């Protein structure tokens, strides 16, 4: 697969990153190397092999339905850069939720 400038721009856009010209060039090369490396796997015959979702056979552990309260709301809110009352505050977001 060919990684182009457009591919990188699109991915940067999803991640909400702005790249300058130099960073963009660098990323194209970097990502091309990674993709080419991983593409090696395409050579492995996988006919009849079931897709693996998780590498280790683990049993899922579930929790029961009993409430655990967070003791200190201020400590929770204090982790964020900004708050307003007991809301987290972030820069204004435009558009519909």
């Amino acid at each position: 697969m060919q990684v182009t400038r457009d591919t990188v721009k699109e991915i940067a856009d999803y991640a909400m990153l702005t790249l300058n010209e130099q960073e963009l060039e660098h990323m194209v090369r970097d990502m091309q190397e990674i993709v080419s490396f991983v593409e090696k796997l395409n050579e492995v015959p996988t006919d009849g092999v079931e897709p693996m979702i998780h590498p280790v056979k683990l049993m899922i552990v579930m929790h029961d339905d009993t409430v655990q309260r967070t003791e200190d709301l201020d400590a929770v809110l204090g982790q964020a850069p900004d708050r307003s009352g007991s809301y987290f505050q972030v820069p204004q977001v435009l558009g519909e939720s």
Partner: protein
Amino acid sequence: MSHVTESAEKTYETVVGLEVHVELATKTKLFCRCSTTFGDEPNANTCPICLAHPGTLPQLNEEAVAYAIKAALALGCEISERTKFDRKSYFYPDLPKAYQLSQYDQPLGQNGKIEIEVDGVKKTVRIERVHLEEDAGKLLHTVGGTLVDLNRGGVPLIEIVSAPDLRSGKEARAYLEKLKAILSYTGVSDVRMEEGSLRCDANVSVRPVGETRFGTKTEIKNMNTFSGVEKAIEYEAARQVEVLKQGGWVRQETRRFDDARRVTIAMRSKERAQDYRYFPDPDLVPFTVSRAWVEEIKSSIPELPDERRARYMAQYGLSAYDAGVLTLERTLADFYESAVQAGGDPKAIANWLMVEVLGHLNKENKAITETPMRPEHLSELVKLIEEGVISGKIGKSVLPEMLESGEAPRTIIERKGLIQIQDTSALEPIIAKVIENNPQSVADYRAGKDRALGFLVGQVMKETKGKANPQRVNELLLKALRS
């Protein structure tokens, strides 16, 4: 889309598919033990897991899985033996992880169906899938910035996706009502639309009648009531038909419904298609739903609305319509059943419940659970009327008080002295008095004017303040007039 714009004279049909999100009634969130209580102080119900602090790991709520399986079974779905959670990536402050844990290609339930009935016509609506996912937080947009409340973030939801089988706003509404009924019967959700525990998006398109391909669809969001869904779909379909008739084409976009103005409005269209980049969540391993667990859950599903409706028709002789009204809400169906078991004619109880009781409650905007009246009291009221102790009219006048105070009907009628006068010796002097005071009507009756009799009966009823048994009055009056 030239095939739909060739002629302006075509008739169009509406095609609708619904995506419904339902909040499950668990006490804790889907991946942590924070409370799911509605209306608490912002962010009071959050913890490092639902706030996505680095290094935390999600732990699946077993009860939420059980509820989702129960809902899927009640909707006739097959339950996947192996399933998993996937990350749906998007950036928005209501989602601190920057991905929502959802189920992409292995939903918990698939291939279900719901039976609906509109204007006497039955129809099966296919359900494509039922899957589990977490809710996002709530944002408040203010001038100073956007405020984030993550109490709802991580609350378990099921998403129920119908096939595009619905053909009108009315059908969509019937589908939602049936869906709500089934879910409330199973107890997996409170299904309160006003608290956002049931939310609905509609995919709407139109096509000329006879066309088998689908037209371009729009998605309508922001509908808060069942009647809003119905109106939004009707409006949107009419708008699309108009666009096509004008020779234009429908743009694939998301629209929002303005309930007050009854219009749908295009939301800011995304210049580029969203890419959610789904992939299996590595923090939650795939899991197996054992057949034994599914069987156990299946055995806990109560009698569902359709079965109950059929039983009410067979067992109590109710009409399809009446049985339908009485079984749409489990609480109402239970009330009816308890009343019938306490005695009295099932049909009469159904009439009193549907006409008088619901009429009164609807006026007060109350549910059957919000009145202190007990089912046995309704049964007693019907029996008192059947036995001729009070008239139907007195029954109607007593009912509001029963609904307000929760008192037994007999207590009220005894206190107010409303017991019907059947006693001949009590009625005869009143009849004699009425005959004496109304010579003209008496003469009219004797001259063959039957209507005069009705007037005289009315006078006796008035004298007795409605307490006389009208049939008895009729008999005695006739007897007196003939003598």
